[in-house]
């Protein structure tokens, strides 16, 4: 290290000057200490600017925000470059971008949740909405209601029941297939070629667009029953199963893999046959994980609209028979009410129904997600620790 020379000590300020900068061809970029306060002040300034642009100059909100954010970025860069050097400036600019990304995402998502609650809460818990179907309800009823001469009629009872039946059937189909496939992958197949292929095709299946799953179910039922009578509840359940099975397989496989091998070996060493080892040791150990994975899979498909639109048609009244004729679900119901109001002139009541159904759906999805978390937490296997 012959190049190093004694450098004079700086009397004030930094700890010590570096020797790296004495190397020819190296231009050092030092960092000076800064605080977050300037950034905060500038952010306030940018906010004021945004308000001025919006209210004073009547600019579009998005434009006002983007302009003041760009201004903010420039100001942050300049100020921190002055205070802390270019590296600090870049660091602060990136920090601003990360925070801005967060805000960018939160705003629409919060707006979405707010809209659903605000628009849907009025009707969603109304007993007449929950207990009635759309049987016999026409645009005239809606017009009467709007003019104040009739009651609010027409609800989502049949759609709620249909959602439960179709999702239930889909669960009944998907869970055994998915679970046993996962068992095959983990317990029997190992890494043989068949299980590699199955993993691959499960991946492929995960990517099937939901509407394609619906088309498949429809095409299948057309072959079985002819184009006229192809639309029925079970077709929808099969379409949902195509979407649900890969999720169940993946979640279950993950959970079965977590079960420690020592448990299996301990059981087998006691002379317990393999199937009983799986049934009595492996599955119970993984039970909470499996249940939570299945719950999440249900939550994923319960709001599906497109495949059902294609496969089950649209029923106005209650239909309990999944093997004959169209049915309805909350998602399909919301879609039709929203896009094809009963009375094109008086859309309000139909929109109300649509938002109410949407709110119910969101609540179900949230509840299922929370339930999955709860199951995973409460009944976590007590292995180790």
């Amino acid at each position, binding site marked *: 290290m012959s190049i190093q020379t004694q450098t004079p000590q700086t009397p004030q300020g930094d700890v010590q000057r570096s020797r790296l900068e004495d190397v020819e061809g190296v231009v050092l970029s030092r*960092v000076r200490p800064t605080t977050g306060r300037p950034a905060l002040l500038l952010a306030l300034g940018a906010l004021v600017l945004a308000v001025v642009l919006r209210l004073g100059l009547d600019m*579009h909100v*998005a434009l006002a925000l983007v302009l003041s954010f760009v201004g903010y970025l420039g100001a942050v860069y300049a100020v921190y470059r002055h205070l802390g050097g270019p*590296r600090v400036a*870049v*660091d602060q600019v990136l*920090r601003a971008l990360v925070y801005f*990304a*967060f805000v*960018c*995402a939160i705003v*629409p998502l919060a*707006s*979405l949740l707010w809209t659903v609650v605000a628009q849907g809460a009025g009707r969603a818990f109304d007993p007449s909405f929950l207990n009635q179907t759309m049987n016999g309800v026409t645009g005239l009823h809606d017009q009467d209601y709007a003019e104040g001469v009739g009651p609010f009629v027409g609800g989502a009872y049949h759609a709620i029941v249909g959602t439960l039946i179709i999702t239930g059937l889909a669960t009944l189909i998907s869970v055994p297939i998915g679970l046993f*496939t996962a*068992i095959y992958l983990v*317990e*029997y*197949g190992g890494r043989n070629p*068949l299980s590699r292929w*199955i993993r691959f095709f499960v*991946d*492929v*299946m*995960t*990517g*099937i*667009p939901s*509407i*394609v*799953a619906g*088309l*498949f179910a*429809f*095409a*299948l039922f*057309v072959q079985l029953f002819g184009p006229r009578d192809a639309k029925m509840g079970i077709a929808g359940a099969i379409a949902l199963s195509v979407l649900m*099975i890969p999720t169940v397989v993946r979640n279950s496989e993950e959970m079965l*893999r977590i079960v420690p*091998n020592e448990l*299996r070996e301990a059981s*087998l060493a006691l002379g317990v*046959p*393999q*199937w009983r080892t*799986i049934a009595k040791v492996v599955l119970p150990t993984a039970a909470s994980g499996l249940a939570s994975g299945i719950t*999440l899979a249900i*939550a994923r498909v319960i*709001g599906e*609209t*497109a495949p059902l*639109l294609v496969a089950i048609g649209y029923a106005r009244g209650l239909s309990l028979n999944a093997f004959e004729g169209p049915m309805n679900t909350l*998602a399909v119901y919301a*879609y039709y009410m*929203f896009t094809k109001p009963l009375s094109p002139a008086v859309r309000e009541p139909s929109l109300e129904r649509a938002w109410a159904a*949407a709110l119910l*759906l969101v609540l179900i999805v949230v509840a*299922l*997600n929370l339930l999955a*978390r709860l199951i995973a937490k409460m009944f976590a296997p007590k292995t180790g620790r």
Partner: protein
Amino acid sequence: MNAPATRRARSSSTAVRRPGDILFNGASLGSAVLILLILAGVAFFLVMEAVPALTAPAEEISGGEGFFAYVWPLVFGTVVASVIAMLLGTPVAIGIALFVSHYAPRRLGNGIGFVIDLLAAVPSVVFGMWGMAVFAPRLGPLYEWLSQNLGWIPIFGDASATGRTLMTASIVLAVMILPIITSVSREVFLQTPRLHEEAALALGATKWEMIRTAVLPFGMPGVIGGTMLGLGRALGETMAVAIILAPGVFSWNFIGAGNATIPAEIALNFPEAAGLRLSELIAAGLVLFVITLAVNLFARWIVDRRAEFSGAN
């Protein structure tokens, strides 16, 4: 996980096979094979129902110029909407993932992570309704402005006053795929070895420099995989586009009326379709299936490459 498999090999060589074992083994093998059959069935029945449209004389297809002429504007709309969604969504998603994993306090980060996962499960019809009722009308004036000031760019043609345009649909798609890309990215960012982060910091890196040196290179393959996943979802997304976009013929103008996507075209026309029209829509679905399949295989290839990569550690 090789152990159970070898055990099976050993037990199957013994003479006694218990009925329970045969049943269990059979059921699991059967389910596994059934999955392959279902997938084959999806392809088979789609092709079967699509054949009439693919073989029909050109003038009988909607538009009167054959299936290809019918489907390519739809493919264009689908791909454009998804790509715009991906371009808008990915940087924001990476930003949120970094915010959650490296900027926000732990507690807050976990909470946000849960909310993001929840949003990934919000039904797409709800996104569509929101986009149509709340979002699209707000964008109308913005499109007006874009059209007036940036009208020389082809994609900013005459503005639609209702905001029900391909651009709006793309933005809503971006919001919809945000949670997917975010949760994958957050996961890989959180897995960055602490050792590498500390190595960067100990060399005198600022926070961003640490992220650039240690976190991003480590997480990039995962982020790309997540992005492809989001792209696949956007390509197949039906309801949001079906509700928001006022469909029309192919146009380069993304902020005015016009354009359509395959899934939305199917959803909007299927309920009333019959005969050859049905077959046409199913054939369009088949095309969509092939596109998403290609994207998924590509994503898988990237994720596999990553597995090789991290195997070195």
